């Protein structure tokens, strides 16, 4: 299923968790792994200088500079490269999101693996900061393949897929998420857990929802599932469906924990808008922030639509 995987990295400790997952996937799927780093931004077109996006300092790019960066990356990932059969280290100058998407397109990768943000920080510090950095936002929006986001140490073993949770909100993007989850489960023999949360969170507009109204909404969701999802399952029977009420991101995390999920697959955004214009939804961000397993964001159906 994954023949080419792109691991976009800052080669800093913030990406260590994502690195472990990326190299695990390479081994599991016998895939070609591109370990890709984008350095600085040119101060003008064809300028010999790069600006370190973290420190703001200028440095001169010459023939040796890129090689030095690659050597640094080899050192950083030495222990993971030891067991790796088919990985390629690459570094380019440019705007990170643009270069990552260009590389993904050029190599026609099946999956992009990234860390959620470039800074290590206290749990408390994440409260007021953007969980998903600007690079991740742009990549998740435009990538034609699923983007796997890792923000915490992955305490599950991707070599032993057991449980995949797919969060459904019955939008077009969530249909793509479903197809990706189903395909993956069929490939690895994992159990597919389909989950929908009827949103009764305090932030919803309107009056307080009564128990009767909740039950009606749950029933409606069940009908939607039967109509939109069930026909695609066909003879695949290793799945379960859960629909309950609550704040979506809270309930997805609770469900994933309860089912000991190895992966959570979600639609990139909930609203029915042009995927080219949609930013990563707040539910995905909240799940990425707290999930103890990787989260896959799916925006475009290109790589996941059924044949």
């Amino acid at each position: 299923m994954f023949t080419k995987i792109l691991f976009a990295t800052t080669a800093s400790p913030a990406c260590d968790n994502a690195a472990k997952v990326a190299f695990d996937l390479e081994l599991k799927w016998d895939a070609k792994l591109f370990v890709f780093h984008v350095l600085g931004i040119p101060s003008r077109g064809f300028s010999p200088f790069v600006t370190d996006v973290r420190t703001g300092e200028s440095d001169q790019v010459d023939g040796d500079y890129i090689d030095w960066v690659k050597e640094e990356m080899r050192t950083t990932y030495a222990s993971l490269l030891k067991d790796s059969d088919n990985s390629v280290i690459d570094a380019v100058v440019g705007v990170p999101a643009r270069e990552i998407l260009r590389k993904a397109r050029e190599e026609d990768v099946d999956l992009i693996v990234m860390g959620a943000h470039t800074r290590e920080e206290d749990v408390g510090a994440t409260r007021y900061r953007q969980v998903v950095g600007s690079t991740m936002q742009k990549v998740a929006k435009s990538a034609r393949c699923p983007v796997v986001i890792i923000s915490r140490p992955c305490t599950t073993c991707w070599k032993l897929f057991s449980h995949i949770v797919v969060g459904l909100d019955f939008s077009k993007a969530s249909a793509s998420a479903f197809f990706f989850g189903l395909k993956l489960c069929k490939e690895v023999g994992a159990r597919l857990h389909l989950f929908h949360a009827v949103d009764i969170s305090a932030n919803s507009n309107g009056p307080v929802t009564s128990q009767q109204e909740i039950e009606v909404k749950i029933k409606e969701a069940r009908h939607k599932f039967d109509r939109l999802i069930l026909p695609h399952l066909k003879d695949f029977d290793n799945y379960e469906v859960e629909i309950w009420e609550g704040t979506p991101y809270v309930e997805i995390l609770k469900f994933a924990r309860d089912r000991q999920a190895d992966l959570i697959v979600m639609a990139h955004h909930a609203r029915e808008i042009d995927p080219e214009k949609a930013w990563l939804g707040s539910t995905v961000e909240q799940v990425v922030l707290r999930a103890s397993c990787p989260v896959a964001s799916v925006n475009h159906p290109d790589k996941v639509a059924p044949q």
Partner: protein
Amino acid sequence: MPKDLCPARGPSMNTVRIRTDGMLADGDRVVQTSPLGCLGLKVDLEPGFILRSFFAMVTAYPLLAEVSPFLPALMEQVRSCPASGCSASGLQRLQLGRAVDMIGFPGPPRLEIYTVFQGIDLGNTVEIKPYGLEDLLDIGVELGPTRHMVFGDKVDVFEFASVFNLFELIDGIAWSLSFHGTPRQCRI
């Protein structure tokens, strides 16, 4: 029969004490009705206060569970934990502190202030994210200092004694515990 308050200190103005049984005490009176009025008061923890006491408070005052969307799920987990013996070795106590982070780059200079809930062992801070509630419930909780970091320097950190109000305590602990939930099945 109501428990005696600790006699070592008299009640302070604008202070609410959380007892080890989770009850809120405003002066020498136990808060029997809505706890909302106590949210802005300076919080004082009775000696012997443990994390289980925190959840006992949320049980005694269900309205407080609305401070965080994760509290109801955490309460469920607490109910499924053993009634005693829930403490991990390697953690002497839990501390709620505050961090003031002066950030210069990237973006415009700014000051971020947030709570930090962490473990303490032999004077060193320990991240508690990998621990489940069954490892934390019977560990003592204390209120810690405010740490001021300047431009990312985590070596020379200024520390100041600080105060917390009840809302900060509830919100800070709930925020931190919402990151827990490592599946027990596989720990690498």
